């Protein structure tokens, strides 16, 4: 935890309210996000209990699995989920703009510009917490290798059409969420704790109710007290007033309410199956429907508070203006969405279970580059984030005291003016260290020459002064100018190109071989309870 975060948390404790950790919003928020609040069955990995999903805060779609151990009902849930999610994704896939991309020409091996489609906007999934992102991944993994009856008539439990496709999309969203600064799939708790510092620990911040209580406490209460209520308060039945944001449910809810409701449902189902005539069946169907309704109401009662909390969080975030470089990062998300759309359209197989060596290395390189980019861009977009970097000696703000014209050595002397800057910050400058300031949105580098006195440093301007002997007007700082210099680079260089997977070298096990279609998980006894 950085020093400034620690200070902000201490301030939150002493004032009783969360303190801003950012002055702008550092993530893109879609005008029409798809909010997804899933619940899972305890004790059953990957058995959904239900979900609230939709883009309209007043009209969420409630999906419920009245008996999560029943495969058919589970598939029905997933099919319904696909009916909500896939049309939403499709609505973004169709609207495109022309864009350029550099590709390697397979014949000449040269880098050439090709015109490609880029989706004009991309969908955005919001889940309540980090566990929700994991759940999206789990659902994706459990679905993408399934076979529909059309693909494989022999499959014992054929998946409804479109379920494998939903699995591929959820997998893509789950993978993209691992890229720092991406906004295709976001967790509300991550979003809020990026922008506010509460007086509790990072782990406690993952409780959406408590986090919101710190940020926006009810009138007459402190954040700390409201957070405590959110975490602990129970009604007369012993149920949590603010149910956990899921996907896991509260054990008291499971034991006292859910388990008996499942039991009633099971009994009603057995009874219906044993009905002897139409009249009896009618009555028993009525009982079964009532039992199912009861479970639906239970699931709705546990997801609706979270659903409302997510939208409340979105309201709070929308009050912050978007950071200047957020749009650029969102464009990368649009590329990512377009890329996966194209892979699906091209009929490529689902994402493999494990990355091959080259894919894994490429992903790691991308994520490291995006992390560095995000760190730099957030600081440049937001003086409060920059203040944190200044406090840790990675940046400093100062005023120009003096500028002396000087020239570099070499055949054609180029301008290398020396700038004396006074700062009250304590940057960790070593001899020859490069520093950067933002000049019209582009980084200008200056080299640290030496320290003249305490808080007075001399820098040599190295670039962005044009090609001539005289620097271009406005490109050299002037006496009295104030600006912030960073010790970190503002822009990230692209990494080296890795070999194609087919050319994986001997050190890494050689080429991974022809990809065989991955079989779905084998049936186990647990699957057919």
């Amino acid at each position, binding site marked *: 935890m950085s020093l400034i975060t620690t200070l902000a948390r201490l301030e939150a404790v002493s004032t009783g309210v969360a303190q801003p950790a950012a002055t702008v919003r550092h993530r893109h928020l879609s005008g029409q996000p798809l909010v997804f609040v899933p619940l899972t069955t305890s004790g059953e990995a990957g058995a959904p209990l239900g979900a609230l999903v939709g883009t309209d805060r007043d009209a969420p779609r409630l999906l419920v699995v009245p008996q999560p151990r029943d495969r058919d009902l589970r598939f029905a849930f997933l099919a319904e989920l696909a009916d909500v999610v896939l049309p939403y994704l499709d609505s973004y896939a169709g609207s495109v703009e022309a864009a350029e991309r550099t590709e390697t020409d397979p014949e000449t091996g040269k880098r050439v510009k090709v015109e490609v489609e880029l989706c004009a906007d991309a969908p955005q999934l919001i889940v309540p917490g980090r566990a929700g992102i994991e759940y999206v991944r789990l659902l994706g993994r459990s679905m993408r290798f399934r076979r529909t009856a059309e693909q494989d008539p022999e499959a014992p439990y054929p998946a409804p059409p479109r379920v494998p496709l939903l699995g591929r999309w959820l997998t893509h969203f789950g993978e993209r969420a*691992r890229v*720092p600064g991406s906004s295709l799939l976001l967790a509300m708790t991550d979003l809020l704790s990026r922008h506010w510092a509460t007086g509790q620990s990072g782990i406690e911040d993952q409780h959406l109710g408590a986090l919101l209580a710190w940020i926006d406490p009810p009138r007459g209460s402190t954040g700390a007290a409201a957070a405590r209520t959110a975490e602990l308060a129970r009604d007369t039945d012993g149920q949590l007033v603010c149910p956990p944001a899921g996907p896991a449910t509260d054990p008291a809810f499971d034991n006292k309410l859910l388990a008996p409701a499942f039991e009633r449902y099971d009994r009603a189902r057995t009874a219906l199956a044993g009905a002897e005539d139409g009249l009896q069946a009618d009555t028993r169907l009525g009982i079964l429907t009532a039992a199912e309704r009861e479970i639906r109401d239970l699931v709705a009662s546990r997801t609706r508070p979270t659903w409302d909390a997510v939208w409340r969080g979105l309201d709070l975030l929308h009050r912050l203006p978007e950071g200047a470089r957020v749009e650029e990062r969102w464009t990368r998300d649009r590329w990512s969405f377009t890329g996966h759309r194209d892979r699906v359209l091209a009929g490529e197989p689902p994402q493999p279970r*494990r*990355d*091959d*060596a*080259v894919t*894994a*290395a490429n*992903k*790691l*390189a991308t*994520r*490291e580059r995006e*992390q*560095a980019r995000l760190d730099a861009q957030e600081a440049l977009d937001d003086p409060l984030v920059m203040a944190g970097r200044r406090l*840790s*000696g990675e940046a400093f703000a100062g005023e120009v005291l003096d500028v002396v014209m000087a020239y570099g050595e070499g055949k054609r002397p180029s301008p290398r003016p020396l700038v004396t800057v006074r700062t009250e910050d304590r940057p*960790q400058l070593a001899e*020859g260290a490069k520093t950067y300031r933002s000049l019209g949105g582009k980084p200008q580098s200056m080299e640290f020459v030496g320290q003249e006195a305490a808080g007075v440093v001399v820098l040599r301007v*190295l670039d962005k002064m044009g090609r001539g002997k005289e620097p271009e007007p406005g490109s050299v700082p002037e006496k009295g100018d104030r600006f912030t210099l960073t010790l970190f680079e503002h822009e990230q260089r692209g*990494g*080296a*190109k*890795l*070999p194609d997977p087919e*050319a*994986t*070298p*001997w*050190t*890494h*096990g*050689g080429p991974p071989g022809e990809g065989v279609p991955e079989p779905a998980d084998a049936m186990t006894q647990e699957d057919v309870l």
Partner: protein
Amino acid sequence: MTTTTAFDPGAEAARATSAILHDTLHGTDRGVVVDSPPGAGKSTLVVRAALELADAGRPLMVVAQTNAQVDDLVLRLAEKNPELPVGRLHSSDSDPYDKALDDLPNVRKSAKAADLRGTPVVLSTAAKWAHVTVDEPWRHAIVDEAYQMRSDSLLAVAGLFERALFVGDPGQLDPFAIVGSEQWAGLSYDPSGSAVSTLLAHNPGLPQHRLPVSWRLPASAAPLVSGAFYPYTPFRSGTGHGDRRLSFAVPADGSGPDRVIDEAAESGWGLLELPARHTPRTDPEAVRAVATVVRRLLDRGGAAVSERSPDPTPLTADRVAVGTAHRDQAAAVRAALAELGVSGVTVDTANRLQGREYDVTVVLHPLSGRPDATAFHLETGRLCVLASRHRHACVVVCRAGVTDLLDAYPSTEPVQLGTLVKFPDGWEANHTVLAHLAEHRVPWRP
């Protein structure tokens, strides 16, 4: 003066080296792996192998991890064989290589690999090599500091060579990634793992050698470093107990720093223990204590006698280094040294001190003053680097109570399936080192 044991360090080292060179020059395997403890003559081996491969007429590329390492190898090659044409492939940044290379007539420097093709030996960093493409791979490569190279950067360069000699120190810091990589933990080619672990996972039959003698570490340090950090692959020091001496012209003034300097000069180790306290990372008292020790080291007119020369060598600022765990700690120590008027002493983090050698080191213990023991601070490699940079003596500055911290703080890292468990773990190595340091403890209240 040598000890009368049957162990002859020179002969042992020569035997290991000739086996390595034999496998490299005449073996049939595509790779040879050499584990080298601190100061065991790794660079000497690399230079020697490079010269022999060049003599055998095999085009050779050398991959090192940093520009400083590459420049150092170029200088050593030129020193051993000034006639050999050497190519230094460098980046297109400003000031891409050591200016000293400009004085060497047979060293060609270029930012383009094509310009250097045909030179018997071409050296560069892994990052630069990754941008090179070739039609025909090099016959041979030497990968230096292979344990500090990440698997993904080996992936980027492995297509450039047919066979390779991988040399490195398994006890130093593992490579790291700035983002989470749990997703790939347990895969043989985990991109955030070390190049050697990927290489050996896919090619388990490759010959593996070990350099058995540390020429850097004194007889006082080798048993501790070997026992704490290389429990299954022990090594010896190349010198005996009387071969190296550190003495001071100015007698001690009785202060803590002076007493710990005397203790370290006498025994090779010194622990300056400050009162127990939880502190910020840049603990002002500990930082000042480190700076004071350095100041006194230089003020007291130190002289080092070693096997290298019969006459005492003065202990100057460039022969002293300060090691810390974090960069802000290093910055704080630099500032404190500047206040005391000391210049020319290297102050850096463990990461940047890897591969470097000094007469005396002053170490700010990674766990000093901490309320917790995170995986970062417990990492065996970090302590190993800090405790193995010296030829004569090492002074550790630390708050009391680290042993209690180690005992009280549970390991919270998740267990990853399929990953190789590294021995020893940081907890045990830290205890071993602290137990040894306790015998050379000088308590001091500043």
